[in-house]
């Protein structure tokens, strides 16, 4: 689809230097802290590590975190794609503003997000008061966690799908129409195959971000161990109570899981786009 990169034309020594610098940078910035966490987590051997992970509070926090992250990611994959399509394909007043709004969740400090959500959805908030009179509570429970995660992860899928849709030939879509394909068929056979790699990229980012989210969730979730405490909040509690091993064990688990998922998503994406190009 895109032209081959001209980077290949760099002299071998320059390319080597660039590669070494990039690797060193990643090593220092990303790998070193991860190694440090691993060293700490295994301070008392694998048995100590497993014992920390097996604590009921740790297990419950991990389970809750993964379930919420998964739910949020699936939701984002669908709604994010629809939003991206809408923004690209239709004209309506205020489109530029809407487009700018999409990225805002990245710019707001997550603690502020949590704070604002509590203000809005709390019993004295504008929406919260209405919800409460209808017997709905979105605070201090799993719904609150999902709400916070949806807000902070919203841009990922939209922004991953949008450029692909922009590249997608409008004529291809119209050709499908004129050839008698219905709405659904055009979507399934023309649009979806092209944007799926984008959805996967966005979903992967959204999922891993949701795994580690702290600031927005801590204010809205309730943070009750075994019930509404997510992994990042659990880790914070362990750090604060001098249980470094417990904190690093759960962190390492999150890291490995995130790494696994990211790799899986990348492989999946590569496969799909190859498949699409071959077709």
């Amino acid at each position, binding site marked *: 689809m895109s032209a081959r990169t001209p980077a290949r034309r760099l002299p071998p020594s320059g390319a080597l230097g660039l590669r070494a610098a990039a690797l060193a940078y990643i090593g220092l910035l990303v790998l070193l802290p991860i190694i440090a966490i691993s060293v700490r987590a295994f301070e008392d051997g694998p048995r100590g590590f497993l014992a920390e992970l097996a604590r009921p509070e740790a297990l419950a926090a991990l389970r809750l975190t993964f379930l919420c992250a998964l739910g949020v990611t699936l939701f984002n994959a669908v709604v994010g794609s629809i939003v991206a399509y809408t923004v690209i394909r239709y004209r309506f007043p205020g489109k530029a503003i809407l487009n700018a709004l999409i990225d805002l969740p990245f710019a707001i400090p997550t603690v502020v997000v949590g704070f604002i959500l509590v203000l809005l959805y709390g019993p004295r908030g504008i929406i919260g008061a209405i919800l409460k009179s209808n017997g709905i509570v979105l605070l201090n429970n799993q719904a609150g966690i999902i709400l916070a995660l949806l807000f902070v992860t919203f841009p990922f899928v939209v922004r991953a799908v949008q450029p692909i849709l922009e590249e997608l030939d409008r004529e291809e879509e119209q050709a499908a129409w004129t050839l008698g394909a219905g709405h659904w068929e055009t979507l399934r056979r023309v649009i979806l195959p092209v944007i799926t790699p984008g959805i996967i990229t966005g979903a992967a980012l959204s999922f891993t971000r949701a795994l580690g989210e702290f600031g927005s969730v801590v204010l809205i979730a309730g943070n009750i161990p075994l019930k509404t405490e997510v992994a990042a909040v659990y880790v914070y509690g362990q750090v*604060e109570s001098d249980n470094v091993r417990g904190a690093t064990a759960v962190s390492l688990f999150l890291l490995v899981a995130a790494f696994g998922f990211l790799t899986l998503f990348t492989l999946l994406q590569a496969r799909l786009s190859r498949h699409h190009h071959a077709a």
Partner: protein
Amino acid sequence: MRAVTALLALATLPGLGGCGGAGSKTRGKTLTIAAYTVTREVLGREIIPGFKQSFAGGPVQVEESYEASGAQTRSLISGFEGDVALLSMSSDMEKLVKAKLITHDWKTGPGKGMVSRSLVVFVVRKGNPKGLRDWPDLTRPGVEVLTPNPETSGGARWNITAICADALKQRGLEAALQILAAVRANVIKMDKSGRESMTTFEFGIGDVAITYENEARARLARDADIEIVIPRSTVLIENPAAVLDVYVDRNGTRALAEAFVTYLTSDDGQRAFVRHGFRPVVPKIEAESRAQFGQPERLYTIQDLGGWKSVGQTLFDKDGLWAQAGRRVASR
């Protein structure tokens, strides 16, 4: 290889967040105070200005750092050179002794090392609509309780100790576990600190927040929609202060630091604490301020319950009563 491991160990040390003193070059006349969060107002507005005025040895600079008691303790241990520590509980002070930062006997002076007191109380909505008078009332169905997480909040440890103090003292561990589980089942949110808990309460969440009496009184002064209830039985909170020998000797601030700790239990210092809702430790000030404070039927000190070491193990160990209470609630 060893150097690498050391570097890694350093990089992963918790609580490096202490505020290093910016004016540390001018030490000798600069006093650095490492305090727990709740004392910010009383220290900043009254005690530090009062001390500066009363100190005979010339003009004094004071730097202040406020953090949750446990985090402050960790900061000091990992190298934040505070001259005086003012903490929420004596068990944190003992950690400084263990780290050999305090080498003298700190449990001296008129308060035996303690400079202020408070009680664990309830903050409820105006008019106390749910009629919450004592701990068993907090176990009733539909009562929403706020208390911070004891893993991050020293205040929460006092709260939880107060919940089961009667049971521990009179009826034993199983009774203590029962009331802890029953109250915990009604806890709807565990914030990081007592102050955050009060903010949550002010958002309209919860029927009762368990907190320090001084914190409650400070809130009452600006929020007319709340009420303070002293439960029939509760725990006497005592807050210690001490000079950190290692740091004052290194920085040449011993005389200044000792004068400050003495000032905390002076008549002026104690009256400042009282004005901010704390109970005094000095008998004379206690006598003159007694009318301002209500008295519970049964008041336990932490020594009555076996001291922090024993209470800490019984309640807050990984599989202590508080954790067990949570698991009991979850398995219902």
